[in-house]
Every structure is written in C-alpha cells, then in structure tokens.
C-alpha cells in the first residue's frame, strides 16, 4: 500500500518534469517541429555589419522568415559576408531582393530586413543578394554631421 503510493508519487513527479520540458520547448522557446531541413541558403555582402551576429533574425515586413547562420570577412574585398538560411516556404523571393541591416527599436538587436524587387526570377540556394545596405553606425553619422557643420561654418 505504502510502496504503491510512493510509486504513484514518483510517477507524477517525473510526468511533471516532462510537462515542464514540453512547456519550455513549445511555449517558452517557441520550438516548432517542421524547423529542420526546410531552408535554403543565400549570401549577401555588406560594407559594415555594425553588430550583426550569428543567429540574428532575417525578416520581411517584420515577419521572421529565417536566421543568419554565418558571418565572416571576405579577405579579397575586405567586406563582410553574411550567410542566412531562409524558410523553404519563402521560395519566391525575386533575384533583385534587397537586404538591409536594421535595428529593433533604438537600442535593440540588429537584424536583416529583406525587401522584394520586381524581377521575374527567384533566388535559389547559394545565390547572392546584390543590393545591400549596411548598418547605420552612430559614430560615422556623428562624424559626417560634424564634418558638414564645419564646412558650413
């Protein structure tokens, strides 16, 4: 009788642990099942990343459609290359899609915003996004502003 109660209690305890893990997975971390393998990779070249890191979001019109997988410096051009994986469901991005590095809020994280163009062809695995816009670097902006002021005065 006593042992039976203990077994039941331990079973309930373990089930609570599993429920906690499931809640953590789906409610808190927003894990989805159809995540793996359903992406394709495109690359883009930027003058300056300004704090964009791996795992940053790739979004279009504010909706997340992919993630940055790799960031490295191209030693031939000395510019930054960003590889991002985009969900297969978004396979109709035109080949003249443009990419810009944006900031979420005033102090928020950096992410890539995509805007579609008007071409007939679509981006495929391994393609380059030609039209890119670098991150706004505050120091450069201030520098340019001061320079203009100095020229005026």
């Amino acid at each position, binding site marked *: 009788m006593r*042992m039976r109660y*203990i*077994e039941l*209690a*331990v079973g*309930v*305890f*373990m089930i*609570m*642990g599993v*429920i*906690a*893990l499931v*809640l*953590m*997975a789906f*409610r*808190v*971390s*927003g*894990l989805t099942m159809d995540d793996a393998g359903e992406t394709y990779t495109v690359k883009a070249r930027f003058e300056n990343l300004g704090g964009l890191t791996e*795992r940053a*979001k790739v979004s279009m019109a504010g909706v*997340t459609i992919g993630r940055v997988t790799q960031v490295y410096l191209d030693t031939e051009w000395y510019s930054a290359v960003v590889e991002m994986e985009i969900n297969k469901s978004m396979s109709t991005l035109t080949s003249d899609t443009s990419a810009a590095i944006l900031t979420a*809020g005033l*102090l*928020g994280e950096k992410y890539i915003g995509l805007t579609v163009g008007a071409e007939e062809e679509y981006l495929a695995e391994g393609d380059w996004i030609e039209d890119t816009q670098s991150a706004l670097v505050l120091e450069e902006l201030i520098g340019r502003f001061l320079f203009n002021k100095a020229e005026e005065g």
Partner: protein
Amino acid sequence: MLDRLTQLGKSGTAAIGSLGRASLLFWNSFFWGGPGSAGFGDLIRQLYSVGVRSLSIILVAGFFVGMVLGLQGYTTLVDFGSESALGTLVSLTLLRELGPVVTALLFAGRAGSALTAEIGLMKATEQLSAMEMMGVDPLKRVITPRLWAGILAMPVLALIFSTVGVWGGAFVAIDMLGIDDGAYWGNMQASVEFYEDVIKGVIKSVAFGIVVTWIAVYQGYDSMPTSEGIGKATTQTVVISSLAVLGLDFVLTAVMFGGV
C-alpha cells in the same frame, strides 16, 4: 613556527585524502550491481524522498522568484520604454541561471542535508558495518540508489522551478502590471532558443545534481559516527555543496555561454 607548518601540512594532506576518498566513493558507487545491490524499487523510494518531497519548496520558491524577477525587471525596463522585453528577461534569467542554481541551493539544504544525516546515522548505529558482515556492499546497497536519485531528481526539479517561475513572472507582468500578454510571450519565444537555453540549463542542473548529491553522500559516509560528527557533516554538506554549485556555475557559464 614549526608547529604551524606541521599543522598546515596536516590539514593539506587531510584535504587531499578526503578528496581521494570522495573520488573512490563516487567511482565505486556510480555503477549498479554487485552482491546485495540495490534494485529499482530502492531508486523509486529514494526519488520519492529527494524529489517528490522537495517539490513543495521548489514550487513555492520558483513562483516567488519569477514574480520578483517580473517586478524588478519591470522597474528597470520601464525607464527605457522596453517593458515588452520583460518575458525575455524573466525566461532567460530563469532558464540559464536562477533555475539551476537556486534549485541546487534549495536541493542542498532540503535533500542533501537529509541524505548526509541519514547515512551518518546509519554509520553511527553500525548498520553499514552490519551490511558488510553479511557480505552486502553498503556502497552498492545504500549509496548507489541515493546518488542516482539525486542526479535524476535535480534536472526535473530545476525544470519545474523554471516553468513555475516563468508563469509567476507572467502573472505579475500581465495581470498586475498590465503588459500585453502577446508581447510577453511573443518576445520570449523570439529570443529563447531550445538548444541554446533550455538544454544548456538542463545540462547545468545535471552537473549540479551530481555535485550536490556526491558531496552529501560522501559527507554522510565519511562522518564521525557520533551525534556531534553527524551534525558537523550535515553543516559541511550544505556549506561545501552551496559553494561548489556557485563555483561550478561560473565555470559552466563561461564554457557554455561565454563565447556568445
């Protein structure tokens, strides 16, 4: 002067000796089997006493820690107008740090001390030597199920702690402070990663479970078989395992999250 030096050497060799005994104890009791070994039923019984009976303190503590995080985070974030990031703050803090660490500290106080006292009393009343006389290895019979129960119960407790904490934070944020519940859960889901945050938190709590239970069973097994010795061993368990958890937490955080 020479006396002091001898004293220092004595305490040094004593510390190294007890570390060696603790390692031997861990190695000899980690694997199941052997004469008179404990069975599955013993593991269940131990899981009940270290896991199920720690549940109430974990639930209450988790809920309050989550609520406090919600309130404290809100007062800071509202200055920057970014109180919608409260869900992210609460969940990441709980999953990465407070869940495993606070659970381990409570676990050391609630279950670790009880383990030490129980094993120490078994030693003082010569139950352990009686087992040896009967050809039963007390390590396999007494220590192994307790060690494994601690290792299994710790991550479960930490997960429950974090989950309750996140909902405690949600209660404060949404019902008391009036943050939009879409913003609370949405921002949380956008920035919490399953492998990066949840699984790494679980890895941490498994490591803490091993350390706390190991120290507890060692202190009990190695205690002086007197009432005073058991009291001292119980105190030692709580002090040493709390410090070990905090130290190990720094190392694990540096290894797992330091580079990001």
